[in-house]
């Protein structure tokens, strides 16, 4: 047993990491599906979209042959509409709300249709939203992730000159660095960011870290307002013996490596345990399997009913051959020569409802042991507690506290996205960015 890279041929890797939800191959396919939409009024799909895309309208526009209009409808509500069409857990959002579900019929493939029109816009570089003339107002946005970019775009549209500061080498945030490669490719992420910034008025400065290269005070002095879309950081620790062993990795780092180097160079174990059952856990498990791990076991401390991922995400893991163990929590990682050898788990049972509103996991006293050589932690990310703690920004458990109009306790400093909500979907971050921008426009008097 060993953690190795280069387990599979380049060809196989290419196949395994290709688009998991392929687009329509023919325009006719999109039109056929678009015509299935019955054009609901006060549509449930729109209501369950955090950015409130007018779904019936954009689908109608596909069926009428107004693809530009369709893409514009989407971008008016969600400038990352293309990315969201690839990464949104739509079965619990728009598609989950589609009225066809109530007839036990397949919902309209809203995400695929959204991808259809917006990808055309990206490819053809359609200039669908026009920036107002510059007002001379300047706003700093920290973090070029979905929240920051959505905020920057909305501000720029309204004539604000925006500077975005990003600590990584590339913009895009979680889209670029934290989502499984078979959902979005690095090339796509660049294309999407380029499309967003093509309206002008947005300067992205990468490799600049808040608290190190710049301070909030400086930003407050140089800009009319500041938006913090700094996201979340490291994965929550397991706090069990053996966590320091070689072979225990953080899911975010694992996916980051996958997204930043050749698949063939990313090392994975023979027998991998993934702790957690969120979207990132699913991504880590399926990507491990697709890198060539022989056995992947997902471990979750509650039962299937309480899982944070969606059924269809779980299906991907199952179809990839990942084992799932419900009601099990890691107790100890046993090593040999400093390397992971075994994972001991507590068998759990469900107890009372906890603060999350779900049935809580309770130890049964029984344990079992898995032979593994790699443990991937996907137990949720922690906020940048240290960074936020050092500032005078009010926070609760490391999450920035904002008012109803997205403002922090410091006047002129606004925030949104994972840094505020602790880690939700890309589409939630986009809406937060829009909300922040609207509040900032009021604040700076536009």
């Amino acid at each position, binding site marked *: 047993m060993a953690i190795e890279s280069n387990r599979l041929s380049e060809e196989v890797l290419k196949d395994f990491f290709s688009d998991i939800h392929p687009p329509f191959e023919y325009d006719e396919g999109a039109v056929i599906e678009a015509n299935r939409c*019955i054009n609901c*009024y006060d*549509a449930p799909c729109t209501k369950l979209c955090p950015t409130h895309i007018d779904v019936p309208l954009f689908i109608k526009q596909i*069926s009428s042959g107004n693809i530009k209009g369709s893409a514009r409808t989407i971008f008016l509500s969600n400038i990352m509409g293309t990315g969201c069409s690839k990464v949104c857990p739509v079965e619990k959002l728009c598609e989950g709300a589609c009225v066809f579900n109530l007839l036990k019929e397949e919902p309209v493939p809203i995400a695929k249709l959204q991808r259809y029109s917006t990808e055309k816009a990206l490819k053809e570089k359609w200039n669908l939203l026009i920036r107002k003339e510059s007002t001379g107002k300047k706003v700093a946005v920290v973090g070029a992730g979905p929240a920051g970019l959505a905020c920057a775009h909305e501000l720029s549209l309204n004539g604000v000159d925006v500077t975005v500061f990003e600590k990584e080498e590339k913009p895009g945030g979680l889209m670029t660095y934290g989502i499984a490669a078979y959902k979005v490719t690095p090339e796509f992420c660049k294309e999407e960011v380029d499309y967003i910034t093509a309206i002008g008025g947005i300067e992205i400065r990468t490799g600049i870290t808040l608290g190190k290269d710049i301070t909030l005070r400086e930003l407050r002095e140089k800009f009319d307002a500041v938006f913090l879309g700094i996201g979340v950081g490291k994965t929550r620790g397991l706090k069990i013996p053996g966590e320091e062993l070689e072979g225990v990795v953080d899911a975010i780092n694992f996916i980051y490596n996958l997204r930043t180097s050749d698949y063939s160079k990313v090392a994975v174990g023979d027998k991998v345990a993934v702790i957690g059952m969120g979207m990132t856990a699913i991504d880590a498990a399926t990507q491990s399997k697709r890198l060539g791990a022989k056995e992947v076991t997902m471990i979750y401390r509650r039962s299937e009913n309480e899982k944070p991922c969606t059924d269809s995400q779980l299906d991907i893991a199952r179809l990839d051959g990942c084992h799932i163990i419900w009601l099990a929590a890691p107790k100890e990682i046993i090593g040999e020569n400093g390397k992971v050898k075994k994972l001991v788990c507590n068998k759990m049972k469900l107890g009372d409802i906890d603060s999350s509103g779900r049935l809580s996991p309770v130890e049964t006293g029984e344990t079992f042991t898995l032979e593994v050589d790699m443990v991937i932690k996907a137990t949720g990310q922690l906020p940048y507690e240290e960074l936020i703690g050092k500032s005078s920004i009010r926070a609760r458990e490391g999450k920035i506290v904002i008012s109803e109009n997205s403002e922090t306790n410091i006047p002129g400093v606004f925030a949104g996205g994972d840094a505020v909500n602790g880690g939700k979907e890309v589409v939630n971050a986009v809406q937060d960015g829009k909300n922040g921008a609207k509040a900032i426009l009021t604040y700076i008097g536009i």
Partner: protein
Amino acid sequence: MANLQSSFLGIKSPNPFWLASGPPTDKITNVIRAFEAGWGGVVWKTLGTQIKNVSSRYSALNLNGKKIAGFNNIELISDRPLDLNLQEITEVMRLFPDRAMVVSLMADNDRNSWHELVKKVQDTGAHGLELNFGCPHGMVERGMGATVGQDPEIAGMIVEWVMEVAEIPVITKLTPNVHSVVPVGRAVVEAGSNGLSLINTIQSVTGIDLDTLVPNPNVAGKSVFGGYCGPAVKPIALKFITTLAQDEITCRIPISGIGGITTWKDAVEFILLGSGNLQVCTAVMLSGFRIIRDLCDGMNNWMDEKGYQNVADFTGLSLPKLTKWEELDINYHIVARINQEKCIHCGLCYIVCEDTSHQSIFKEDGHPYNTYKIKEEECVGCNLCKIVCPVDGCITMNEQRKGADYLNWKEFQRMGLPLNNH
């Protein structure tokens, strides 16, 4: 099993479905294939004066992803030599003696031309003649086709010429490009026509190519009005047929129903409004002759369910149910009801009622599903909500009479009853 055998003006066919005069019946190859597929008879594509066709010839109207709700053509009558057609007609009749063979005719507008053509066709042994007074393009400019069908005097005169030599039943095919088909219908009945058939196609422009700005179909950058047909014209055909079936003079002779028949249900409707048999063209042009199977099978099953032995048993049964507006019962009142168990919360009933009708539906906001309820006191019973509802049986219309007795508009006025105030 019900009996689908048909006899129209004594012309027998194993079922009441004939192929209408048109491209599917213009040569032996097609007609043999049609008879092999099970069609009861054909009306051979119009023979007559010399013509030349153009390219292209057809165009269509698509609707919300449904291809070909309507169809049109600018093709003329047969462009093949008359003798070849007559030879093929004879041959087909030899091969399929149990099928109906009617030949459509359009001669030049003189007595001799008509006499000559009728005689030649009769020599083939054909069972009947159909006079094409309906073609709305190409022939019109030469004073033929629909030009004849729009003028009672000319139409009657030609029928008289034909009847002078006709030895087999004569059906006159009428054009719908008139405000009423009754005057021409009366004229040809009085001139001795044995039967009527309608509708021919309706003058139309199906659309325009938004790149070239040329209307469809495009013939070297120009177009002309084409004859509209297909599912979209069915309601118009039913209306015209009803007016003839209800008229005291035109009702004397049988009607062959034509116009957008696509399914067995359409066919049953044509018969219920007085058609003695049916002619189909566009539906086979869009799917092939194989559709005859379900046309017959569906009608047969329906007849069995309803207990009809023969087509004649239900011919015209809906005619008394089409009346004049002033005879409708004003005291009849229905109110919509939404079955909440079946509702899928699409909101279509609400928005159409709210925007375009009587604001009779109440919306109770929910996340993500709203609840919709009828405000019974506001509902006028218009059916709109039920029509747009995507779930069968979800919205029903329930009777809540305004008064126990029948009351029509004339009585209503005479009694000085109050008008609505909404």
